[in-house]
């Protein structure tokens, strides 16, 4: 109580400070320092704290204001609501045919602002239901679900007028952009589809490419030729019906610069409406076989085995191989050919023309495993392909690349390749040996690649042999008068998910005109069947004629001059039969 007594002594005018100092001196080590003094000290600390925090805030504020980052909230606004046209219209390479355009439509929504506390949901549901053709009960449920409830999309002016007159004040109308695909399902696997907010989520194809790269040009021309695309799709669609196939796909590729002229996969979808259906239900339609799939294409792969051996100068086209030989290393049975050769010895060119597995296995052995690997990786078949689409699939490589898989790969099994990669690799074989990069954008006429896969001599030899395939071999039905079509058929057993093989996949890869190929065509059918006028189910009976039909229709449109002989070619061919 001594301290309170000390206070009692103080009267107005006293020197308090003196007393306080005295007091402190006497209790120098006591815990009970004068509370006012302690308070003063601690308030000083509090003051420093405030100064410190305000300094920190000023620094933070300065950083934010002087070095502003991206204002994130703006792009968060749906592109569909922007005032300017948010996405470019897309045209084909001729610039005349519209593929995708953007329209403005009206969207109606019930928005509950904070001021509308007395918003009567029941009344609103009853008033709106006749105009929306929806049961009041369902509408009520929807309206009660949130603060912003969209009630109608893409409404006409008449509908807007009706809804306005329904007397529900909370309805707001928004002008929104919408993508429209006038050619419907045509080229749908290139264009893909968009969603209503124009973002990457649940969009596909070139549309997704646009969003992801924020391309905002006014107009885009693709390398697609809509006429060619139309022919390709018609024939592929007909082929499914004609040969009772499960699916089909095809591609027309410029052999010299890699422009994709047409690319189709069936079944396909209508991008205008595809988002109305669930992902899982339309998965088969949405699947782009040309770029997302990876398939064992079969005998068409023999092109690479022969080209590789010629390029490595390990064989000549005239070298003969024993096609009756039993190759049964690490196999239960001897390797067999699709059709057993009548003669025992075939030269390398005949091996490809007759599509002999036994012969190809032998060539692979001559070239060797490492060279095969290197050559195939040079073709780009072992890597992911790049084009302006994000759905690219990956090739399925063999688990172990041993001698057995080397043999299999030599005739087209055990290695799943992405069809687009395959087509561009074939283009490199036939175009004089130049590796090309497929693209959806048109390329300049002056475009040229210098990366070489094989020499032009080997390329010429390959063209000769592939011409023979179409002229006298399994590709006969793909021949079109005047265009010297070159190519190769392939009939592959489809690997089952459960193991083993089930069903077939037939393909024809070709190029025209044969002496200097401008375009590569690939057509594949999934599990076609033979019946009546179509006697077999091999590529000879379905893929080849389909490809021939396509070439017959598109070649004149692509301004390919008609050539009647293959003579220039024969002179240079290094073959003597």
């Amino acid at each position: 109580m001594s301290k309170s007594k000390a206070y009692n002594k103080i009267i107005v005018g006293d020197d308090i400070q003196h007393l306080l100092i005295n007091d402190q001196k006497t209790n120098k080590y006591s815990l009970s320092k004068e509370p006012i003094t302690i308070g003063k000290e601690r308030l000083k600390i509090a003051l420093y704290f405030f100064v410190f925090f305000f300094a920190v805030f000023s620094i933070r504020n300065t950083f934010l204001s002087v070095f502003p980052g991206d204002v994130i909230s703006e792009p968060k606004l749906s592109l569909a609501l922007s005032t300017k046209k948010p996405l470019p219209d897309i045209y084909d390479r001729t610039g005349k045919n519209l593929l995708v355009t953007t329209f403005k439509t009206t969207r109606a929504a019930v928005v509950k602002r904070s001021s509308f506390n007395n918003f009567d949901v029941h009344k609103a549901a009853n008033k709106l239901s006749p105009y929306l053709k929806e049961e009041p009960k369902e509408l009520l449920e929807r309206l009660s679900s949130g603060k912003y409830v969209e009630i109608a999309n893409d409404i006409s002016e008449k509908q807007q007028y009706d809804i306005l007159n329904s007397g529900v004040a909370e309805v707001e109308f928004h002008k929104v952009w919408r993508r429209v695909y006038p050619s419907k399902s045509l080229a749908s696997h290139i264009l893909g589809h968009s969603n209503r907010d124009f973002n990457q989520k649940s969009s596909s194809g070139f549309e997704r490419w646009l969003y992801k790269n924020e391309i905002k040009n006014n107009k885009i021309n693709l390398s697609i030729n809509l006429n060619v695309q139309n022919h390709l799709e018609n024939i592929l669609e007909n082929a499914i019906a004609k040969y009772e196939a499960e699916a089909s796909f095809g591609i027309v590729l410029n052999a010299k610069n890699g422009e994709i002229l047409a690319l189709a996969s069936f079944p396909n979808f209508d991008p205008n409406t595809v988002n109305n259906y669930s992902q899982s239900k339309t998965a088969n339609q949405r699947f782009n076989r040309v770029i997302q799939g990876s398939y064992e294409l079969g005998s068409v792969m023999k092109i690479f085995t022969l080209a590789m051996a010629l390029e490595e100068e390990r064989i000549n086209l005239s070298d003969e191989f024993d096609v009756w030989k039993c190759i049964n290393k690490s196999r239960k049975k001897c390797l067999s050919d699709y059709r057993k050769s009548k003669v025992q010895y075939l030269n390398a060119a005949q091996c490809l023309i007759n599509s002999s597995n036994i012969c190809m296995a032998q060539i692979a052995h001559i070239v060797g495993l490492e060279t095969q690997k290197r050559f195939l990786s040079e073709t780009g078949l072992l890597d992911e392909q790049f084009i302006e689409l994000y759905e690219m699939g990956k090739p399925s490589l063999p688990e172990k690349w041993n001698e057995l898989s080397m043999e299999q790969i030599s005739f087209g099994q055990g290695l799943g390749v992405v069809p687009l990669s395959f087509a561009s690799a074939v283009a490199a074989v036939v175009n004089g040996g130049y590796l090309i990069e497929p693209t959806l954008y048109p390329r300049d006429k002056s475009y040229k690649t210098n990366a070489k896969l094989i020499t032009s001599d080997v390329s010429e030899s390959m063209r000769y042999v592939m011409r023979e395939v179409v002229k006298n071999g399994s590709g006969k039905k793909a021949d079109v008068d005047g265009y010297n079509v070159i190519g190769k058929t392939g009939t592959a057993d489809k690997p089952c998910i459960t193991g083993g093989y089930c069903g077939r996949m037939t393909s024809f890869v070709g190029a025209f005109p044969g002496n200097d190929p401008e375009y590569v065509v690939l057509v594949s059918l999934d599990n076609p069947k033979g019946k009546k006028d179509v006697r077999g189910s091999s590529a000879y009976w379905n893929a080849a004629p389909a490809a021939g039909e396509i070439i017959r229709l598109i070649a004149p449109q692509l301004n390919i001059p008609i050539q009647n002989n293959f003579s220039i070619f024969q002179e240079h061919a290094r073959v003597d039969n």
Partner: protein
Amino acid sequence: MLRISRTNTGPVGEWWFTVDRYMLFGIIFLGLSGLFFSLAVSPVEAGHLKANQYYFLIKQSVFLLISVALMITISILPKEFTRKISLILFIFSLLGVLLTLIIGLSSGGASRWISVFGIITIQPSEFLKPCLIILSAWFFARSKEEQNSKYSLVPGLLFVLVATLLMLQPDLGQTILLFITILCLVFVQGFPWLIIAPAGLVSMISIIFFYFNFPHFASRLDSWIEIWFGGGAANSKLTQTQAAIDAIENGQIFGKGIGESWVKYHLPDAYTDFVFAAIAEESGLIVTISLMILYLILIMRGLIRSMNQNNFFNQLASSGLIILFGLQALIHIAVNLSLIPAKGMTLPFISYGGSSLLAMGITMGMFLALTKKTNDFKTPDKLKN
């Protein structure tokens, strides 16, 4: 011109020469600049409510007038009155808070307001804060004077009572603000460091507890963490905090100009809890820095004034009030700068809001009353035993 003679011994004259006039004018200046900013910000909300675009300006002006009048009146009253006023006000606002739990108007998931005769809505919890501080300071001072530490338990109990009521609303922001202010009082009144350190630990633990038990709180903390540590800007939805940052960044150094800003339209509470960001977008860095300096000067002056009090209760109570004022500004700015998770906290005298303005008027009125330059030793009657 009105002149007050130094020899005037009437209450007004005495007040004029003893009150901290700089503080008084500083606060009035703050309130006027708040009005100016509300000119720009209020059309946003008025647009939302489809009201007259000057609706908020008019309302704010009226409340500011009442608030300043309240402040001056309270500061004129003798120092002893602050305790009486706060005791009465404390009881009333406690009842008010209880009422909000029963008949409260809810907004944004919390019921904090009660409607008075259906004309104005008030938020009683705003008035609880200064009263609780005065009462706490009272008991702390008494425990020191009587060397009886039992008294210092009373503020703790009062705080628990108030915090429970606030958390029932729920109003986490106010609870945390009060908690920190009471902690500051405890600190200032001379609590040993040994006890202050564990208190910090407890608050850490309670934050973690809240995070896992209050989804509202957790989502805000999450959005804040997301902004600071990146991670999926693409899939994060536009949060309040992000909008505030955008507004500040959009303002840059000189601002977009009055009425020229657009991010403020994304701010959910551009006129209350995010007024700082809205000002930053409108007027830019220079104005916000000036504003912060003004606040800092007021806080520093207030703290120095409290330091120099030679009555323990006055020191404690006035410092508590100025710390409340300072902390509220601090938290508001920190939230706007996205330095701490979003909490509903108004910027004193600038944010729109009747209750907040009136309560701040009362707070600063009490502060001014307590820090008047009068001889204190005749007042604390308890010392005369």
